[in-house]
């Protein structure tokens, strides 16, 4: 049974806060039960009021000013009291916690001479609550079938914030289960999740539902990950997020030449926009991708503008 947002917050997020923040947040949720169901973010900034992010606006709880001790306690808990073990992940500016929620971090950055950097004295945390929307891709899958009865290599195109990743995640889930309505057999799905957004792994284990046949390479660069999966996991379909550079394009071409289907997302307004970008154009014009889905937020995130062949 799906959990309500209030349930998610009470179970996954609130125990990570100091008791005074938990009390203030709990009190606000009790007073605003409808708004509590739409919470997208919770921001803790040292010396500033607690901030609750809602769709389109935010709300500051002025009666509660977040202290350094509040941040330290939360930081200690989200790192499982093991900051040292997550030092490398901290360089990326965020970590994933159980439940698939992401915690963004900011504070003092110490730059090293070798080009590396370290994040210290963390003074602000942003909890982005993970939300699963199942079934969004279900009615689209029949339109993405190729003539051999399997899924076609597909490009998911949209500007940021239009639900590309949610769509990809649902597609992974459907591919893993198969879909009887279009005679799609279950497939071995391999996911290269460079930004931990598709599967939201915690300790290497997906926290969001990506189906029963998914192998995930978490936080792995796409080009490297595609090669590794091809050699090691014998996938039917490789799924990855936000194709960009030359290396990504070459890796995708390599996978497709090897007979593996690829489903990937990339930033763009529409197919013409994709054709104006050198590496996406290269993949599209050579016929590596045969189908496309274009998403927008014209009627809210996930509005489908186009599904079909790439002409």
């Amino acid at each position, binding site marked *: 049974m799906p959990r309500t947002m209030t349930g998610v917050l009470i179970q996954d997020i609130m125990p990570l806060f100091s008791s005074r923040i938990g009390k203030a947040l709990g009190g606000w949720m009790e007073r605003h039960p409808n708004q509590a169901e739409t919470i997208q973010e919770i921001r803790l900034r040292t010396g500033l009021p607690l901030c609750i992010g809602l769709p389109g606006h935010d709300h500051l709880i002025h009666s509660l000013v977040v202290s350094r001790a509040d941040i330290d306690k939360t930081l200690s*808990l989200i790192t499982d009291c093991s*900051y*040292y073990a997550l030092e490398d992940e901290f360089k990326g500016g965020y970590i994933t*916690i159980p439940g698939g929620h992401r915690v963004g971090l900011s504070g003092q950055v110490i730059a090293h001479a070798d080009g590396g950097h370290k994040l210290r004295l963390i003074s602000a945390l942003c909890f982005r609550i993970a939300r699963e929307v199942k079934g969004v891709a279900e009615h689209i899958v029949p339109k993405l079938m190729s003539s051999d009865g399997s899924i076609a290599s597909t490009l998911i195109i949209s500007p940021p914030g239009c639900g590309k990743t949610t769509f990809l995640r649902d597609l992974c889930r459907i591919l893993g289960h198969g879909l009887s309505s279009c005679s799609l057999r279950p497939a071995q799905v391999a996911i290269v999740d460079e930004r931990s957004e598709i599967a939201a792994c915690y300790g290497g284990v997906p926290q969001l539902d990506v189906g029963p046949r998914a192998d995930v390479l978490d936080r792995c660069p796409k080009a490297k990950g595609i090669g590794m999966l091809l050699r090691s996991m014998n996938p039917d379909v490789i799924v990855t997020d936000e194709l960009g550079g030359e290396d990504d394009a070459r890796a995708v071409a390599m996978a497709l030449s090897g007979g593996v289907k690829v489903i990937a997302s990339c930033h763009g307004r529409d197919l013409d926009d994709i054709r104006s970008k050198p590496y996406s154009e290269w993949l599209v014009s050579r016929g590596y991708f045969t189908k496309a889905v274009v998403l927008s937020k014209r009627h809210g995130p996930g509005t489908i503008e186009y599904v079909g062949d790439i002409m």
Partner: protein
Amino acid sequence: MAAKLEKQLDELGRFELALLTLSNEISYSLSSLPKALVNAGHKVGGDTGTLFTLIGSLCGLEQRRTVEEGFRLALEQAEGLDLPGCVVEIMGSLVKNLGVWGSKEQVSFIDMALGETRNYRACVQEEYLKKARMYRSLGLLFALGIVIVLL
């Protein structure tokens, strides 16, 4: 008296070993701190081992407690433990810096605690030897006194 000092020396030795194990777990295995504390506790045994195991099992994300909170609760739950005062004192200040630093800094803090423990252990060892010498001399004098009385 000697037995008490012997017990103290034994626990201090265990505490040193536990700190070394903790340092190794952090630097080489990158184990999570609760796990590292439990592993160190199991390895060294004795009352010190019990304290480490308790702290490890009472802190972390699952228990929703920081190491410091875990330590305080462990001391409450482990009233029967016979630990040298310095172990509790050193551990008390170490837990404030455990799990909140990068690997390099973390090992430095453990090294500092290790240095303090070694100094304290050397003092206890010296006192133990001094007391042992004194009791030996007293024993000899007493035996000599008895011989003289008997003669």
